[in-house]
């Protein structure tokens, strides 16, 4: 299969899965197996792209011309390819987990749930391979809209309210700010294509650069940069598979992925470095890292705590871009993969605890470790990866970001990264420590009684993935290297 076909097929397969969900909505085994097959096929397509292109960068191929200069077009480059691999690969696991979760929890409207999930995946692949800002924006909005019903899935007033905040902030920022920035960019340069080294250099100078960057940075609400972060904790009302794949991986990573794309291919790392336009963004990201971690410490609801942790971790990636060095951008790119693997583990564990014992608050989980050693063991590994400890994947991007901060002379950022690691310890490890080591209150099960297999196996696999990623970090770095070298 040639590369472009593979991309189209990868985008269409989730839609096929959606159709299958609708068609077989009453035959749950057929329906779920069919989706699983589609998910695997999607991942297969992305693998074909990988084997065809490697870490090269292909020429954009236009699928449809809206009007002159504005196309819906796709190309392959390492960052997008990595994002697509993560999204589609983790989809398989999340689907398996989702089946276990939805059945174990007796949730309703399975078909609608999985159908929306499929559209979201399809748009993620669109985002990953978009070759210009217009295409990316289009799929970005589809992703927002398609995930709205997932957040509101339970239909309770609380979830409706959460979903409203979710939609309002994401749509609001993207139209009011991001679209403005896109139009402005087009007016200035006459193109929206992602280009190595950026397109803005020579077209803008002075104060416009940081302002334009600001429109993008805040316009990409999915990156959850403070102060536009509230949608993420609000989205935690969704069923856990949604939180796991979408709000730890697909949606938020689409945000920071867009952020990196804008930084690397619209502005250009060198241009940002020359103009110092991103320095304020660096400080804001640093602030987000610390502030979100502090807030996380005071959340008793496990998913909310993880959500704030995500906000903090996403800012690492924004920070990597804002440092405006190739090392920083690489660190940010790598953190997409490392954080995805770690955070999805944590969310799936949170879901497994909910499915089995219906506990959502950390203070209720005291002493639960004896009953769920695998789940909490996976949670421990995920936590250590998020904190950035060896031998887990999360340790490398932090080292790269630290080195990048030294290179740019921002030693305070090193302090921020250090403090953040300690805050991560302070809010993640007590969850595990309480579960395993505090005396269990009356009525807590002490005999081994894990969540259903489909709920604990996927997080166990991703936890192992965190360890594996530690040893393959070098490969990821080599793989991503072309995105920051000026000549492709």
């Amino acid at each position, binding site marked *: 299969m040639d590369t472009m076909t593979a991309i189209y097929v990868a985008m269409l397969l989730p839609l096929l899965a959606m159709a299958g969900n609708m068609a077989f909505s009453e035959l749950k085994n057929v329906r779920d197996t069919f989706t699983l097959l589609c998910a695997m096929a999607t991942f297969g397509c992305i693998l074909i792209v990988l084997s065809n292109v490697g870490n090269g960068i292909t020429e954009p191929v236009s699928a449809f011309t809206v009007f002159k200069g504005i196309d819906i077009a796709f190309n392959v480059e390492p960052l997008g390819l990595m994002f697509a691999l993560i999204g589609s690969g983790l989809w398989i696991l999340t689907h398996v987990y989702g089946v276990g979760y939805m059945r174990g929890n007796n949730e309703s409207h399975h078909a609608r749930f999985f159908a929306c999930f499929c559209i979201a995946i399809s748009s993620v692949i669109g985002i990953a391979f978009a070759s210009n800002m217009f295409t990316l924006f289009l799929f970005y909005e589809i992703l927002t809209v398609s995930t709205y019903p997932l957040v509101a899935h339970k239909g309770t007033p609380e979830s409706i309210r959460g979903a409203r905040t979710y939609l309002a902030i994401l749509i609001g920022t993207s139209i009011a700010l991001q679209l403005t920035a896109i139009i402005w960019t087009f007016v200035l340069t006459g193109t929206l294509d992602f280009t190595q080294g950026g397109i803005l250099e020579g077209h803008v100078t002075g104060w416009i650069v940081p302002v334009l960057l600001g429109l993008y940075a805040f316009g990409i609400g999915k990156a959850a940069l403070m102060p536009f972060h509230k949608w993420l904790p609000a989205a935690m009302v969704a069923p856990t598979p949604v939180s796991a794949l979408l709000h730890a991986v697909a949606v938020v990573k689409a945000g920071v992925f867009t952020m990196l794309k804008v930084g690397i291919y619209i502005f250009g790392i060198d241009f940002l470095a020359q103009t110092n336009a991103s320095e304020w963004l660096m400080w804001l990201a640093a602030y987000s890292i610390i502030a979100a971690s502090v807030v996380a410490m005071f959340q008793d609801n496990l998913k909310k705590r993880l959500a704030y942790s995500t906000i903090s971790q996403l800012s690492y990636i924004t920070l990597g871009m804002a440092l405006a060095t190739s090392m920083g951008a690489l660190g940010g790119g790598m953190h997409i993969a490392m954080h995805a693997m770690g955070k999805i583990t944590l969310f799936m564990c949170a879901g497994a605890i909910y499915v089995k014992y219906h506990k959502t608050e950390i203070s209720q989980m005291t002493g639960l470790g004896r009953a769920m050693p695998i789940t909490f063991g996976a949670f421990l590994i995920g936590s250590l990866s998020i904190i950035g400890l060896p031998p887990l994947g999360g340790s490398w991007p932090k080292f790269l970001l*630290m080195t990048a901060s030294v290179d740019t002379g921002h030693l305070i950022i090193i302090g921020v*990264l250090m403090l953040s690691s300690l805050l991560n310890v302070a809010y993640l490890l*007590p969850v595990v420590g309480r579960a395993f080591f*505090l005396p269990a209150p009356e009525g807590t099960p002490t005999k081994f009684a894990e969540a259903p297999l489909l709920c604990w196996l996927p997080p166990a696999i991703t936890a192992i993935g965190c360890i594996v990623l530690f040893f393959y*970090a070098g490969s990821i770095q080599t793989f991503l290297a072309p995105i920051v070298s000026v000549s492709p």
Partner: protein
Amino acid sequence: MIDIFPPFVIYIIAALIVPFIPAGRLRSTFMLVIPVVGAWMIWNTPTGLSAVVPFFGFDLTLMRVDKLATIFALVFSLAAFLANLYAWHLRDTMQQVAALLYAGSAIGAVFVGDLISLFFFWEGTAIASVFLIWARRTEGAFWTGMRYLIIQIGSGVILIAGVAMYYASTGSIGFEAMTLPMTSPITWGALEIGIWMIFLSFGIKCAFPLLHNWLQDAYPAATVTGTVVLSAFTTKLAVYALARGFAGTEILIYIGAIMTLFPIFYAVIENDLRRVLAYSLNNQLGFMVVGIGIGTELALNGTAAHAFAHILYKALLFMSVGAVLFRTGTAKGSELGGLYKTMPLTMIFCCVGAASISAFPLFSGFVTKSLIVSAASKEHYYIIWGILLFASAGVFHHSGIKIPYFAFFAHDSGKRPKEAPTHMLWAMGITAALCILVGVFPAPLYELLPYEVNYENYTTTHVITQLQLLMGSALAFTVLTVYKIYPPELKSVNLDFDWTYRRFLPAALRYISFLVSATFGMVTGAINAFAANMVHRLHHSHGPDGSRAASWPSGAMVLSIAALLGLALFVIFFS
């Protein structure tokens, strides 16, 4: 690639296997075999070898075998063996796995030749060891574990940040001797700050003054067997790292001197005997740090030798107090006394440990500590020499006399515990025998030291002056006890520097957060009111029924929609 098999791998593989061996004699035997195999591997690895693995764009040196590394690795293996023997009765998989990973990380760390690998093992010891504290499974131990973990991981985080700065400035990650910059901090660049951070991270693990409280906090909180394991590795790893990276750094002499000094005051008034031992451990580390600071061959030999002897006698003391705790449920001086009648062997082993730490002639401390003290006088640090003498006398006072006296003699507590179980007696017996063996025949230990030893221990002068010093100390104890001046053991805690982060900082933070949230509430409240008012007025004048609605061109409509969207966003965000 690797042509030698790094010994830490054995421990990691073993840690993976242990959960699958049924808890019992088989598993306990397995736990004993591993350190033996590890030590055999270390013994047979010729010095000068190195193993380099390319990884993540770096050349990581997993093995750099020289005498300094080997002696630490060997004594770590020995300590792991003895601690596992002591814990023969243990049926807790979590603690066993943690102990293996902890020992493996420590052994891995002493062999690495680069700072990044050092960071891996550095954090490895931090994470593995906390489980030995948490395994007590009480609320107090949980919070102690959290504090311990944050400080230990913090040390690692400072290390990696320092390494990042060092690497970015020099392009090298080699773990070699570094020069601590002593110029004014204003002139420092990334390299200088980086080296200081590496130094600081070593200092945290080495329990430098004001960075020391994790030690006294954690060791009394761990399980009976966990404390024995804990006492061997973390701090001695830090001593090794300092000896490797900062030998001859003068400031260490003064840091070390303060370290030998202040813990003994606390040790005298501390009630929990395991905490007394933790303070005296801190004091013994001070001797080693002074040795590193002096940095001559004699002094470094002294540090390595003292670390070796120290691990053994400190383990022995923790084992004997642990055995008392194991049988009576308490290690507090105020609750104990008179146990010699029913635990005579434990008492004797405890006294051997006490004599060793006090450096009595024929016991291990005598032949190792004197190297450091002599080095201080030979290099003309007379005040330091005086402090070390005082500290030596003080050690005898609180560790040598106080521990055995309050546990086994003093007033009869009426407790009649059974003698420690056989495996604990064996563990203590072997350790005690080693302490005496090293004290009587120091030559084999001296063979292992990094430099050649030209030092005669058993001279008339040395033996007599040492005995005079110790007996002077004993006399003080006797007189003060006879005249009832000696402070009695009381149930209490004594404020130490940890007060700053257990009491002062939380209170300060609570106060600040109260101020911030109050201010924030006022500001957002005002903004909300303003925004709502604005929307209301705009609606009134520009809304569909407003007076101005008719006269607007449609182009302005688009702008106002965008503005409204932005405003709506604003309102939603803050509401």
